[in-house]
């Protein structure tokens, strides 16, 4: 697999802040991979993806996206490769109606109108919002707005989709529908590379790989199961433990048998069924 995103030695200081937001960070994301970046508030996750999109000017280091090195001249070419969904559904809705908002990126790219109409319709269908195309944002729920934001990105057909805490302001149902859209996208023929920044451990567990970021540095990377099994790492990076890990620990405290390695919720369920049978 080819590397889609390569970050080398990236460093960024916010003006008038001594502590760097990104401190010599290096990482690689493969093509078609789903990577989740986790870390506590202020650990530099958002700054990292914004630097990759050329939205913050980093002072040191090198970013290469889909073979294009990020420079002030190439920034618009890099941005064409990346579609970003941000946290607040209200503050990224540009258009006056759903269809207008989905069309915004296409308008910027100078796509002819008849093609634009097809793409907007197709993208809205993909996120199940076709019936809402002439609605105004104030009449939509947060989850619906976030689906529109996703449609705006799907219409552009980027090779990378970045979800910058895109589900953090949604209720569990809205979160689920956004995640379902992403899962559906992953199954499509030309599966995009996905980077999701999240505090939601269930969401993180769906990714193929986790990157733990702390104080602008990459603390660890690995499969969700490996990271979640490492209690010391979770504690030092200020992350919560997943439910199944907490359950296993409670079982140990009660003195009963408990699994000796990390299990996801469904794996835990199976394990409990089986252990009950053999007990």
């Amino acid at each position: 697999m080819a590397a889609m995103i390569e970050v080398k030695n990236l460093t960024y200081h916010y003006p008038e802040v001594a502590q760097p937001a990104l401190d010599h960070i290096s990482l690689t994301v493969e093509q078609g991979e789903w990577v989740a970046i986790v870390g506590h508030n202020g650990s530099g996750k958002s700054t990292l993806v914004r630097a990759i999109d050329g939205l913050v000017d980093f002072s040191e280091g090198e970013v290469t996206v889909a073979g294009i090195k990020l420079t002030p001249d190439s920034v618009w070419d890099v941005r064409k490769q990346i579609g970003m969904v941000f946290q607040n559904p209200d503050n990224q809705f540009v258009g006056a109606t759903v269809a207008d908002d989905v069309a915004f990126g296409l308008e910027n790219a100078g796509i002819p109108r008849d093609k634009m109409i097809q793409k907007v319709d197709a993208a809205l269908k993909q996120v199940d919002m076709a019936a809402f195309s002439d609605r105004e944002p104030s009449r939509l729920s947060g989850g619906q707005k976030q689906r529109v934001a996703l449609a705006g990105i799907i219409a552009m057909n980027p090779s990378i989709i970045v979800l910058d805490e895109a589900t953090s302001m949604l209720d569990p149902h809205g979160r689920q529908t956004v995640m379902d859209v992403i899962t559906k996208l992953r199954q499509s023929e030309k599966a995009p590379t996905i980077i999701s920044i999240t505090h939601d451990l269930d969401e993180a567990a769906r990714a193929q790989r986790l990157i733990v970021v702390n104080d602008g540095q990459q603390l660890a990377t690995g499969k969700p199961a490996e990271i979640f099994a490492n209690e010391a790492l979770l504690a030092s990076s200020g992350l919560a433990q997943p439910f199944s890990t907490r359950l296993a620990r409670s079982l140990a405290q009660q003195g009963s048998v408990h699994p000796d390695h990390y299990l996801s919720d469904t794996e835990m369920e199976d394990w409990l069924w089986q252990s009950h049978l053999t007990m």
Partner: protein
Amino acid sequence: MLEQLTLGRYVPGQSILHRLDSRAKLLLSLYLIVIVFLTSNWLTYVFMFILVGGLIAMTGLKVGYFIRGIGPLIWLIVFTAVLQLLFTPGGHVYWHWGVLMLTSTGIATAVSVFLRFLLIITMATILTLTTAPLAIADGVEAMLKPLRIVHFPVAQTALMLSVALRFVPTLLDEATTIMNAQRARGVEFNNGGLIKRLRAIVPLLIPLFVGAISRADELATAMEARGYQGGDGRTKYRVLHWRSADTMAVISVLIINIVLVVFRHLN
């Protein structure tokens, strides 16, 4: 309070007036408002009122919307008419006391000011009730287009207008939330004298401004991430269509103008 305002509100519908091109509607409404000042005798007023009544009927909306549209402005209209009534000299003097007087010219001016106000407000209400804010923004953009010759940033102005309109309900919601939050902390918005009330506005205004600035910042980032590089080289998703009904509307307004001029010179 903010929800009851009908002036400038849009009510969705399917009437002929709803479907007219927004450029035609905007231009013709302005034109109709200007030619209201051609009214002079009772014939012209009767004609204009029949016309406005006809337009209201054409919108297919309840008359209540229009009455409520005039409601908040009725005091302004009455105030202006009363001033005209009491301070206009000329003609036959019926009564006077100091500078106050009641003259035949005064009565005539007061009546015409009152009627013209009524006509103008009703016509403006017809425009806003039948035209979505977005369509008005599109219409304004189309009308600004000639200014490109003098390097006026038409596309940017249009985008600003459409973003502003899109954020009106969002900011209204936020204002209500902040107001309630401050009320919960003991700020009284509807009590006390002028100074006290003005001071109570500060805890509402400052968070609203700060919120708007951070929203603008996030919106700008999102727009940039989606490839917005300014007005040039963009295509447009939304286009306006000029139909035969729009041409008909222009012709009818011109006929109305001619009729009005003819009626003005009768008597």
